[in-house]
């Protein structure tokens, strides 16, 4: 189980997170929706301390981290319990697909090389890239790179997988293959927090949907509550805009 309490983050005068809190149960998929600049990505990046939050409490699988009372070891522990899939994939450019997956296993989890290799191969099989083991990121398409990114996160066996707009940088025809992999990850019962604009994905996969705007949670509930019967005007406007542009794109 993962719980975030009263998370605050400002850049200079600009308050991006104004006390966010939520709780994700084991095996749940949390989808965070919201317009750009609403603080969704910052929220994810604060959970594994890629950005240092100003205030708040993070509780993941028996580890409690209170902002302001952290040390390097705690942050490292926190990062070992989480894994992240990035908008721009962020694969290690100097490593092949299989090496990308192996890196975390060898360094953070101190697994021996052979075992790490076998585990990495099996996760690359899971995302359908068993024939691309020795390719460098520069030799892969965006969709393939992102699937490697997902395999890299999965292999770490984290308490929670965080997806930061995983399909936003992809060409439209490549979005499907990545979403398919994500759905299968969800079916396996992984705990996931997903920041995305893919409403259909949220409707289909999410256990819970959060709508964020202006650094606060505007609305929270099941997909049918938030997506199909939104209560707040801001949510309605956002959904309108998104579905409208989706329709336009489909045409």
């Amino acid at each position, binding site marked *: 189980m993962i719980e975030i309490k009263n998370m605050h983050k400002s850049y200079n005068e600009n308050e991006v997170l104004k006390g966010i809190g939520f709780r994700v149960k084991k095996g749940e998929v949390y989808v965070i929706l919201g317009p750009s600049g609403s603080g969704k990505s910052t929220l994810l990046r604060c959970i*594994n*301390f890629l950005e240092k939050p100003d205030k708040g409490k993070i509780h993941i699988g028996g580890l409690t981290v209170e902002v302001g009372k952290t040390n390097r070891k705690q942050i490292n522990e926190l*990062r070992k319990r989480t894994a992240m899939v990035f908008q721009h994939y962020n694969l*290690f450019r100097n490593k092949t697909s299989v090496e990308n997956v192996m890196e975390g296993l060898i360094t953070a989890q101190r697994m021996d090389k052979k075992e790490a290799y076998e585990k990495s191969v099996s996760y690359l099989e899971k995302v359908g890239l068993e024939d691309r083991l020795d390719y460098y990121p520069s030799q892969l398409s965006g969709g393939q790179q992102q699937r490697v990114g997902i395999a890299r996160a999965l292999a770490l066996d984290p308490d929670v997988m965080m997806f930061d707009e995983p399909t936003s940088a992809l060409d439209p025809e490549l979005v499907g293959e990545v979403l398919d992999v994500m759905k299968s990850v969800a079916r396996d019962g992984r705990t996931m927090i997903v920041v995305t604009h893919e409403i259909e994905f949220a409707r289909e996969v999410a256990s819970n949907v959060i709508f964020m705007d202006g650094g606060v949670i505007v609305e929270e509930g099941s997909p049918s509550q938030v997506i199909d019967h939104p209560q707040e005007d801001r949510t309605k406007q956002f959904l309108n805009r998104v579905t409208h542009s989706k329709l336009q794109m489909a045409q």
Partner: protein
Amino acid sequence: MYKKNRLRKAVILFLLLCTVLTGCASQKNPSTSNRSKESGGVRKVVVGTEGTYQPFNYKDEKNQLTGYDIDVVKEIDKRLDDVEFGYVAAQWDSLFLGLESRKYDMIADQISKDEEREGKYSFPGNSYFNSVASLIVRDNNDTIKTMDDLKGKKVGVSVGTTFAQILEKYNRKHGSPISIEYYEGNISSVLQDIEAGRLDATINDKVIAKEHIKELGLKLKTTGEPVITVPSYFVFRKGSDSEGLRSKVDEALSEMRADGTLSKISTKWFGEDFTAVEQQDQQQAGEEKKESSSELLDVKYMVKSFPEILRYAPVTLMISLVSMLVGLIIGLITALVKIYRIPVLKWLASFYVSFIRGTPLLVQMYLSYYGIPKILGFMQGHYQWNVDVSNIPAIVFVYVSFSLNTGAYLSETIRSAIQAVDKGQLEAAYSVGMSRLQAMVRIVFPQALTIALPNFGNSFISLLKDTSLAFIIAVVDIMGQAKIVGARNLRFFEVYIDSAIIYWLICLVVGKGVSVMEKRLNKYEGGMTA
């Protein structure tokens, strides 16, 4: 507006400063006369001299060339109505090259006569000075009195001088018992190294040595009987156009010797007469016959010297490699200090980089060579260290100065390369649980290396060429050996061509090596077929 004004003021001030400085410089150097052969019936003669050879030729407090050599030429100038003399100061080895290439018409620099020189240049009949060469040692040294006492000792001497030839001749005859350390430039570095204990002795002109010992306040003395008495001559180019000048100068010297003017000038400068003609003078000229020719380019000598100079390529490579490796480590540390803005250290790093980039390498080498022993000596006195400063080989100071120099330049390359690595790479590394060190070593550094490699290659090549300065502090590398070999027969041009070829070849190989490495490191940036 304010800023603009300030900028304009600064520019004006700068321009003013430049004008004033260049104005001063040109005022102080009236000696560099134009070199047109004939102007209004008066022939202008350019005299080349070192200008750092006190008391024979040097610049006084007013930056005017003066000294015994200059006084003698001035006296000749007075006696010759149709010739006007101007003076140019230059380094010893470029004097002869300058004479050959018609930059100078005459050399006045206490030049002695020997067979090779006579083969290439023209000497007047009259000498104008007799220098008495003597051994010079620390003033508490009573064991060295004659040449034979030098066996097994380290003796320093400036490359290409008569004194070097005396030592080389002795070594040829006796099976090289003396270890000769070659120096470049004037006597003072040799003297300072004797006092510092790096050398045991030197041979040099008695007058010169005493003057320097006094001037520098060194605890040294001249000792024993004169090793040799060597007459000094003005030197001219061979050929008919130079012949007239030579005979005119020779005539004037005869006159001056006859009427006692020459002896008077000597007494004025040295308190005694060093101009009397001695018969045994001629004896010193090399007994062994050597080939020497006056062709423009002696290809045979060039080919013969090539392997002799090439033998010192490992020294150059060693200096370059050691300095590059140490420089990389220093550069990396400095870069990290700057990137992570580590308090206090970052100020030191900035100071270090700005100092090294703002001062000439040559100056840094002198600072290292003379400064480090001083500091160590001081520490020794204060902390009872047991380091024998005088036994540190000179190459250590070369390593130190080149490593520090390279490190400063590399630190900027490394810093920008590290910062050029996409920030997402570091975030991804953290996100899979790597520590800061792991992320740096496994992800950031390899990528930064690929970015920096072309610059590293360039730095290495300039370092390789910069090491040609090593001979300044008595380390014999390609360039040093070229100077030593060249000085033997005054075939400097040939040996410089040799060394140019050697440097060029090495750089070609290094360049090739770097591009192969680039290709290998770059494989992950390539396309599908890479």
